[in-house]
């Protein structure tokens, strides 16, 4: 038969394509794209550097609470970033401040990501009234100015690192929830999810193995950006006096304390300010780079 002749040829043609190049996972592709992005690599180097500073820095600098120095001394050989109004070493406080910022940013972001993914998954998978109730709640929360919400929560819980982490975690999950829900709504209709159902894969495994990995890319971007935002928010709360409590070395708190003497002792503003800028910039650049590398469009 005519069709069979062409069929054998087609078979060979298709088979010959079977020799594909070296295996590339989607992640290694993304890493290649990320590496080519200079700004993103700069951000990554910055983040790694700051993590190193946060991990081993505190053992290299002086005691951030030691008030033994001269008040408001300009940078010297002994105090590279000078001293503050109480004679404490600014460099030690900045290093400890970065450590605290990273700690708060990381924990708050992990918490908000878990909460956002849980709410988003439930809304996007079950749809119907669960979706309506959860998403209207998210809309209402998004309608309240962020700082008002944070101030109200701190007023209830009191000041301190734990309170700041809880506040940031409970206010930042909204975007994650929306993104994850949108991803679920889209992915659950795709043919490979239907194919998994046709094979007989149980629902829980479908969600964990087939849907979640495919909605996770925008979440990765949101995590990187979220850490930056959380650090900035912590600084803002501490600056407003509702964040970390006074003797603790918080970058936002240091800026707030330096305000009165900013014209005479600019180093008190400059160094903690740079600390915040570099940390936030690092995470934002990494987030942007990831967005391009992972080809995420909706964040």
């Amino acid at each position, binding site marked *: 038969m005519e069709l069979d002749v062409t069929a054998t040829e087609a078979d060979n043609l298709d088979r010959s394509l079977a020799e594909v190049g070296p295996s590339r996972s989607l992640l290694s592709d993304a890493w290649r794209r990320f590496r080519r992005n200079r700004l993103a690599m700069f951000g990554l180097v910055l983040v790694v550097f700051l993590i190193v500073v946060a991990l081993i820095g505190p053992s290299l600098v002086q005691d951030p609470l030691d008030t033994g120095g001269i008040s408001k001394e300009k940078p010297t050989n002994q105090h590279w970033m000078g001293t503050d109004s109480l004679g404490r070493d600014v460099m030690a406080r900045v290093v400890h401040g970065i450590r605290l910022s990273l700690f708060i940013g990381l924990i708050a972001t992990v918490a908000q990501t878990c909460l956002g993914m849980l709410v988003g998954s439930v809304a996007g998978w079950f749809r119907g009234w669960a979706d309506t109730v959860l998403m209207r709640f998210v809309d209402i929360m998004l309608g309240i100015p962020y700082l008002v919400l944070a101030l109200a929560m701190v007023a209830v819980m009191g000041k301190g690192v734990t309170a700041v982490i809880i506040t940031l975690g409970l206010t930042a999950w909204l975007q994650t929830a929306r993104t994850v829900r949108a991803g679920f709504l889209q992915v659950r209709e795709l043919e490979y999810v239907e*194919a998994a159902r046709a094979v*007989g*894969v149980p629902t829980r495994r479908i969600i964990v193995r087939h849907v979640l990995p*495919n909605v996770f890319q925008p979440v990765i971007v949101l995590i990187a950006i979220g850490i930056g935002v959380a650090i900035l928010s912590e600084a803002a709360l501490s600056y407003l006096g509702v964040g970390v409590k006074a003797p603790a070395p918080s970058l936002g708190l240091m800026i707030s304390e330096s305000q009165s003497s900013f014209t005479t002792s600019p180093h008190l503003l400059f160094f903690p300010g740079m600390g915040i800028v570099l940390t936030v910039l690092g995470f934002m650049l990494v987030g942007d780079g990831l967005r391009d590398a992972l080809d995420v469009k909706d964040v």
Partner: protein
Amino acid sequence: MSGPLLEARNVVKEFPGPRQGFLGMSRATVHAVNDVSFTLDRGETLGVVGESGCGKSTLGRVIMRLLPATAGQVLLDGQDSAALERADSRAFRRRVQMVFQDPYASLNPRMTVGEILAEPFLVHQGMKRSASTARVAELLSIVGLSPEHASRYPHEFSGGQRQRVGIARALAVEPDLIVLDEPVSALDVSIQAGVVNLLRKLQGERGMAYFFIAHDLSVVRHISERVAVMYLGRMVEIGTRDRIYREARHPYTRALMSAVPIPDPTLERQRQRIILEGDVPSPIDPPSGCHFRTRCWRATEICANEVPPMTGDAKHAFACHHPVETPVQLGESPVPA
């Protein structure tokens, strides 16, 4: 066991349509599949053709129990498939499998081909990944790929190769029936024949039945023993391949066949096309009586008033008040007999 492997009895599938009326308080109904009955024997291939939107894919998903039927029954070996699936979903899925239309969308991009093919063994036999490696390798070679491909991701393959992976996934549980939802229509023509031949070869070796959905009449002719034609949710004609291709009685079937070009310039020039007027009516508000009457050149008053019943025997049946009596002319049939 006697009796057909699969029997559909008056299957109806309706979807809620767009909201309409004051403040969207009422909802239209989309009649996707409308009172469809047919049988499919063990090891047989039933080709289902019809233009897009005629409900053939929906019918396939109802058979797969990916969608519940609104009314009617699908029997598997004489037992209600809805009850079978409810009682033991996995046991049902071991008997009925599906190959999807879009080889780019039907494989999870985050899983390697090996993981995709190991999943049926994990779900149905509790086999760990390491235990099923040999089975996965066997599946890959059965469909003409090599075992080394297990570590690759779907995006590294061509459409035809991906569809082979989709077929391998369906074969893993050794089903009695595979629903093939336009398995080759998304592929290059040069690749189509290879996949169709693979399907035929596998059927010869393993004897499963195919419910083969397509819109390409030449492909259906090549692979099917029996052919069913659907129009706007209803089955209008069903019969053995030769009866359908040589003696189609329903005007819609004739029009469908006349639209296929002939791979012979001399015959192609003589081909007489039946040009249908207008578009397919909306399945939200299908015409009364015979659904095809609004575009049929033979329609009379009775076609608007009465739904034509399926008449005929197991070899050939059609639903028309005014069937075409003459056999299909040379040039009217897609492939010269």
